[in-house]
C-alpha cells in the first residue's frame, strides 16, 4: 500500500487550513476542532482516531447467481475532517462501491469502515453526509427547487435542519441554478441536472460530502469551471469531501490527496499528496508543480493497471 503516511491533516498547506478554519463558525465546528487538535497525534497504524472517514483493510465481494465479483481488496486510507480527497482508478475498480461503503449503503465483507470513528450506518441515520450519485437521480415530477430540498424533507426525525433558506438561495445562485428553480429536470441540460444534484447535497448542510463523478456529463470547459466553483463552495461551507473521478487533472486540482486505485479488485496503489496552496484558482493548472503531480498520478495509475 501507500508508502506515504495517509494522515495528512497536518500536511495540508498552512494557508489552506487556516483560511478554512479561521473565523467561520460552521456546523461542523465540533469535529473541525477535534480534527485540528488530534491531526498531529497520529496513532501507530497511521490512522487518526478523528478521521472523518477511514477504511481499514476493507474487502468487498459481490455475489450473484452467475458470478462472484471481487470488487475491493484490503483497502486502507483515511480522510481527515475538512480534507478533500479524491479516489481515482480504472472503470469498475470499485470507486462507487467505496462511496457506498462510506455512506453505510453497503456493508464491508472484511475490514472496518468508520465515519468519525462510528459505523457509517449511524452517519446515514443521522443524515450526516450528502450523497451525489453517479447519475443525477432527480425526481422528474419535482421542480429543481423541490428536488434540491428533497433530502431535507425526508427523515425529519434526525436532527439535521438543512441549510438556512437564505444560505441555500445564495448557494443556488453561486451554482447557477437560480434561473431554473421552477423548471422540471427534463427541461435542463445534463450539466444543469448535475449541478442540481450537487446543490441538493449541499442543501442538506451535512459536514461530509460523498461525490461520485459529479462532473462526468459536462464538457471540458464547464467541467474546469465547476472545479473552482466546487472548491469555493467547499471552502465556504467547511466540508469533508470524498470525491470520485476519472479525470486526473480534476483530481489534482481539487484534492489535498489523491488515492490511486488499481484495476479490479481495487486496492490502493499510492496516495499522492497535492501540496498546491489554497485557495486555488484556474491558474493553478498552468503551474509546474501541478504538472509534476499530474505526471505522478498518471504513472501511479499506469502502474496500478498492470497489477
Amino acid at each position, binding site marked *: 500500500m501507500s508508502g506515504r503516511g495517509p494522515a495528512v491533516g497536518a500536511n495540508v498547506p498552512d494557508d489552506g487550513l487556516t483560511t478554512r478554519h479561521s473565523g467561520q463558525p460552521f*456546523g461542523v465546528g465540533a469535529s473541525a476542532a477535534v480534527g485540528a487538535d488530534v491531526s498531529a497525534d497520529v496513532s501507530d497504524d497511521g490512522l487518526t482516531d478523528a478521521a472523518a472517514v477511514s477504511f481499514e483493510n476493507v474487502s468487498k465481494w459481490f455475489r450473484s447467481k452467475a458470478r462472484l465479483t471481487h470488487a475491493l481488496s484490503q483497502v486502507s486510507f483515511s480522510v481527515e475532517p475538512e480534507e478533500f480527497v479524491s479516489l481515482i482508478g480504472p472503470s469498475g475498480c470499485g470507486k462507487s462501491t467505496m462511496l457506498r461503503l462510506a455512506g453505510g449503503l453497503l456493508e464491508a465483507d472484511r475490514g472496518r469502515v468508520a465515519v468519525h470513528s462510528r459505523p457509517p450506518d449511524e452517519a446515514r441515520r443521522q*443524515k450526516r453526509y450528502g450523497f451525489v450519485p453517479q447519475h443525477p437521480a432527480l*425526481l422528474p*415530477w419535482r421542480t429543481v427547487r423541490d428536488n434540491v430540498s428533497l433530502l431535507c424533507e*425526508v427523515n425529519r426525525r*434526525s436532527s439535521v435542519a438543512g441549510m438556512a433558506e437564505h*444560505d441555500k438561495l445564495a*448557494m443556488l445562485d453561486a451554482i447557477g441554478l437560480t434561473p431554473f428553480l421552477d423548471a422540471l429536470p427534463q427541461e435542463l441540460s445534463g450539466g444543469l441536472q448535475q449541478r442540481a444534484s450537487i446543490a441538493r447535497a449541499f442543501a442538506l448542510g451535512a459536514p461530509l460530502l460523498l461525490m461520485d463523478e459529479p462532473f462526468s456529463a459536462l464538457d471540458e470547459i464547464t467541467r474546469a469551471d465547476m472545479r473552482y466553483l466546487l472548491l469555493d463552495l467547499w471552502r465556504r461551507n467547511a466540508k469533508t469531501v470524498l470525491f470520485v473521478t476519472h479525470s486526473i487533472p480534476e483530481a489534482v486540482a481539487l484534492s489535498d490527496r489523491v488515492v490511486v486505485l488499481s484495476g479490479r479488485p481495487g486496492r490502493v496503489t499510492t496516495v499522492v499528496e497535492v501540496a498546491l496552496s489554497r485557495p486555488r484558482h484556474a491558474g493553478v493548472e498552468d503551474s509546474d508543480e501541478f504538472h509534476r503531480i499530474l505526471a505522478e498520478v498518471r504513472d501511479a495509475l499506469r502502474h496500478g493497471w498492470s497489477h
Partner: protein
Amino acid sequence: MAGSGSAFEEAPPETAAPEAPEASQGLAAAAEGDAEEIAGRRFEEPPELPRRPLRRALLLAAPFAGLTGLLAVWEVYVEVRDLRPLTLPQPSQVLRHVAENPGFYAQNGWVTVQEAFLGFVLAFVAAVVVATVMAHSELFERASTPVIVLMQSTPVAVLVPIFLLWFGFSPWPKILTAMLFAWVPFVANALIGLRSVDVDTHELLRSVNAGRWEIYWRLRIPHSLPYLFAAGRICVGLALVGAVVGEFFNSRDGLGNAARVAQSRLLVEQLWGSVFVLAFIGVAFVLLLMAVEKRVLRWHASQAGGHRGIQA
C-alpha cells in the same frame, strides 16, 4: 447541528481582500454560465413558430370527422341495401329516438354511471392496497398471485347470479361486477408501477435513511401513476361492461336493463339508443381521465412536452 452551513455568503475576512477580484471572476464565469452568457450577446428574437392554422383546425376537427364518417357510411349502407330496421336501424333514426326521450336515457344512464363509477373506484382502491402489500412483502405476493390469476381467468359474469343471491335487488351486485371486471388490470399495473422505482433515486433516499412510507409516497406512488392511468383508461370501459352485465341479469333500471327490455320487446331504437348512450358515457369518462392525466403527469414522457417531446 447548530448553525450548519451558516454565513454562507461571507468569505473569510483574512483572505477575502487579496483574492477578491480573481475569485469573483472565476466564480461568475463558472456559476452563471447558462444564464448570463446570453446577456453578453446581442439579444436574439426567437423565430416565429409556424402557425399553420389550417393544420390546427384539421387536427381539431379530425375526431369529429371520423365519427361523422362512420355514421354516414352506416346511414348510406342501410339506405342502399334497404335493410329492415330490426336488422340494422339507421343512426339518424336512433339519434332521433334518443333526442326524443332525453329523460328516459338520462335516468337510466345515471344509474349505470353510478354503478360503474363506484365499481371503478372500489377496484382502484382495492388494487392499490393489495399491490402495496404485494410490493412490500414477497411472502404475500407469492401467496396472492395464484388467487389473482384465478380471478383473472374466471369469467366474472358467472358470479353475478351469486351476488344476486347475496344482495338481491340492490345496486351492489352490479357494483361488485363492475369492480371485479376492472380490478385485475389495476392490480397488475399498480404492482408494476410500485416496483418500477429508479434504483439511483432509491439509493439517494436511503442515504438519508428515508423510511418505507417516505419511499412509498415520494417514490413508489408517483412512479406508479403512469401505469395506473394507463390501466384506468382500460378499466373505464371494463367497469361499464361490468355494470351492464350486472343489469342484464337482474335490474329494474339502468341502460343494461333498458337494452334487455328493448331486446325482448323488439324495440330496436331503444336497444340501439342504449348502445349509443353507453358509448357516449364511456368516451366522456376516458376523455375526462385523459384530461386529469395530462395535468398530473406533466413530467412524464407519455405527455409530449418539454424540449424532448416527440412530435407526431
